[in-house]
C-alpha cells in the first residue's frame, strides 16, 4: 500500500474538518468537525506507525481517542451552559467579546 494514500485520505479529512470548523454555525456541528480533524490525525499516526514498523503510532492514537472523548464531554458541557444562558448555540450570536 502506498503510504501516500493514507496520507492523502488524512489530509482530505483534515481539510474537510477545517472547513466545517470555520463554516458551521451550530456549536455541535463544530465539535463534529473537530472530531473529523482528530480522526485524520489518528489515521496519519497509524499510517506512519505502520510505515516505521513501531507500535508507538498506535499508542499515540489511543491516547488521542481518549483525549478526544474527554474533550467532547467538556465541550458539550460548555455548549449546554451556553444554551442554558443564551437560548441559542449559534456561534454567530456568541460574540460578547465583540468590539
Amino acid at each position, binding site marked *: 500500500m502506498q503510504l501516500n494514500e493514507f496520507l492523502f485520505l488524512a489530509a482530505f479529512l483534515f481539510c474537510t474538518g477545517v472547513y466545517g*470548523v*470555520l*463554516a458551521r454555525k451550530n456549536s455541535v456541528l*463544530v465539535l463534529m468537525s473537530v472530531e473529523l480533524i482528530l480522526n485524520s490525525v489518528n489515521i496519519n499516526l497509524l499510517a506512519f506507525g505502520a510505515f516505521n514498523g513501531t507500535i508507538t503510532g498506535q499508542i499515540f492514537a489511543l491516547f488521542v481517542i481518549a483525549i478526544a472523548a474527554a474533550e467532547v464531554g467538556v465541550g458539550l458541557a460548555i455548549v449546554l451552559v451556553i444554551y442554558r444562558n443564551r437560548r441559542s448555540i449559534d*456561534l454567530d450570536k*456568541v460574540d460578547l467579546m465583540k468590539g
Partner: protein
Amino acid sequence: MDWFLRNAWIIPALPTASFVIILLFGKRCPYKGSEVGVAAVGVSFVLAILTAIAWIRQPAVGDDKIRQFVEHNLFTWFDWSTASSSGPVAHTTQFAIHIDGLSVMLLFVVAFISLMVHVYSLEYLRGDRRYTYFFAALSLFTASMFVMVTAANTLQLLLGWEGMGVCSFMLIGHWWEDRPNSDAALKAFFTTRTGDIGLLIGLTMTFFLAGETFNIEKINQAALSGKLDHTLLVVAAIALLAAVVGKSAQFPLHTWLPDAMAGPTPVSALIHAATMVVAGVYLISRMYGVFSAAFHILTPGHNGFNIVSIVGAATIIIAALLAFVQHDIKKVLAYSTVSQLGYMVMALGVGAWTAAIFHLFTHAFFKADLFLGAGSVSHGGSHHSFDMKKDMGGLRKHMPVTFMTFIVASLALAGIFPLAGFWSKDEILANAGHNGYLAFAIVGIVGAGLTAAYMSRCIWLTFFGQHRGHGHPHESPKLITVPLVILTVMAVAAGWLNAFGLHYFQKWTENSVVSSAMAAAHATEAHFNWVLAVVSIGVALVAIAVTFAFYELHAFAPLHGLTSKVRLARGGYMLLDNRYYLDALYTDGIVYGIKSPIARASYWFNQYVLDGVVNGAAIGTRYLAASVYRYIDQDLIDGTVNGLGSGAEEGGSLLRLFQTGRVQQYAAAFFLFGVIVIGVGLLALTHAFG
C-alpha cells in the same frame, strides 16, 4: 587790590551758586529762598564796588594814559592743539575773565539794579505762587549777565547772552497760566532768537577772520589792523548787528519788548530796562574794533551816515511816536526804553563810544526807577492794574513818595539839567555833531522833545486829574519805596561822574581798542557843546509845557479829540495803535507764511508716513499673527495633533472591526495566515533546494 581784579570771577560765581541752592533748598528756607538770592547779589554788589575801586586805582599808562585791562585765565575750556610739520600748534580757548572799565561799570550797574530789584520783589511778589523760582531765575539772570560782561572771549559772551535769553523767557512767562503771558515769553524768545542767528554767524566769522581765536581783544586788534578782507568784515559786522537789533529791541525787531511787559514789574525793571536789553549795546561797545572798521564809523566821509546810526535813529523816532498812544503805563515805559536804546545804538554809530555807554549807565538808573515806580503805582494805587486811562489818575495826593521819584526820574529821562540824563544825552548829541553826523544830532533833539512829551502825558494820566479807578489808593510799603528813593538819588547824581568837566567816567572806561580806533581815524573826543545842550533843554521844557497845558489846562481846544474828528489824524492814530502793523506782518505774514506750509507738511508726514509706518507695522504684525494663528497653529499644528488623535481613533475603529467576538472568524484568520506562511516557506524551501 589787584586780587579783586584777578578774582572777579567770584562775582558771577556767587549768583550761580545761589541759583542752584535756591532750586534745591529754596522751598525749605524760612524766607523761601529769597534770602539766599538777596545775600548773593548783595555780596556780589560789594565785590563789584571793590573791583571798581581796584580798577580805578590801576595806573594809567602809555601815551594816551589808559588803564591796562586785566585778563585772567581760569581754566582751559577747549583745546584743539594740533601737531603739524612745523611743530605743535597750540589752539586753546581759555575760560577767562576780562576786567576793564566797561566791565567794571556794567558789573556795578547790574549788581546795583539787581539788588534793588531783589529787595523790591520781597514785597511786590509776596505770596506769589512761584516765589522761590522767581528768585532762582533772578539769580541765574544776574549770574549770566555777570558772565557776559566779564567775558574774555566770544564763547563766554555767547554763554552769558543765551543764559540771559533763557531767564528772560522764564521771567516774562512767570505767570504762564494765563495764555497772553506765555505767548509774550515765546514772542520775546523767538524774536531775539531771530537776531541770534546773526550772532552765531558773526561769532563764527570773527573767529576765522581773526586767525582762529575767540579772544575779543585779539579780534578787535585784527579788525583794526586793516589786514582783514573788508567785505567779510562787513558781513560779520552786519550779522552781529542783527543780534543787537534783536536783543536790544531796535527797529524792526523791537516788537517783543512791549509785549514782555506781561512779566512782573521787577522783571521789567531789571531785564527789560536796565540790563538785558543793553546787552546788544554792550556787544557793539565791546567789539567796537570790528564795527568801527567795518562801517568806517569814525571816518564818515561824505555820507554822514552808516547802518548802525540809521538803525538807532529810526528806532528813536518810531518808538517815541508809539509811546503816545499807549494806555498801559508799562508799555509807555517799554517804548521809552526802545527809544533810549536807539539813542545808545545811534551814539555808537556816530562814534560816540563813551557817550553811548555813559547813557547806558544813567539810563539804567532812571529807567529802573520809573519801572519800579509804575509797579508801586499798581501795587498801592490802581489795584494791580496798569491801565492809566481806566484805573489811575490823581495819585499824587495818595502816593507822594512814588510821585516824587517818578517825576524826578522822568525829568532825568527827558534830559533836564542837572539830572543824569542831561549829561549823557547831551554828550551823545555833542559827539554826533562833532564827528560829522549832524543829521543825527537833530534826530536826537527831536527825540528828546518827544520823550519829554510822552512822559508828561504819562505822568498827567497817572498822577494828576481825577482818580478814575476803584478801591483806596495808598502809598506802597517801605520795601518798595526805599529802592525807589535810592534809585532816584542815583538818577540825580550818576551823571555827575562826567559832568562839569570832570570826565571821571570817561577816564575810567577808556580802553585801548577805542582809543587806537580813534587814533587811526584821527578823531578826537568832543567837548561839551553848550549850544546843543541849551537847545535840547529848551525843546524838552517846551514839550513838557505844551503837553501839560493840553491835559491839565485843556489848552489847544480844537486839538482835543482830533483823532475822532479828522480822518488823517484818525489814520495816523490807527497806524500807531496797531504798531505800524508790524506785528501783523510778522505773525500773520512772515511766520504764518513759513510755518503754515511747513506745519501742514509736517502734519502730513506725521500722519501718513510716520504713523503710516507705525500703523503699518502694527497692522502687518497683527495680520501676521492672525495668519500664524490660523494657518500654522490652528491648521498645521492643531491639525497634526488632532490628526494623530483621530488617526489613532480611526485606526482603532478599523482594527476593532477585527474583534467580532466570533471565534470562527478568529480561527479563519489563523488558518489563513498559517496557510500563507507555509506556502511562502514552501516556495522558499523549494527555491533554496532547487
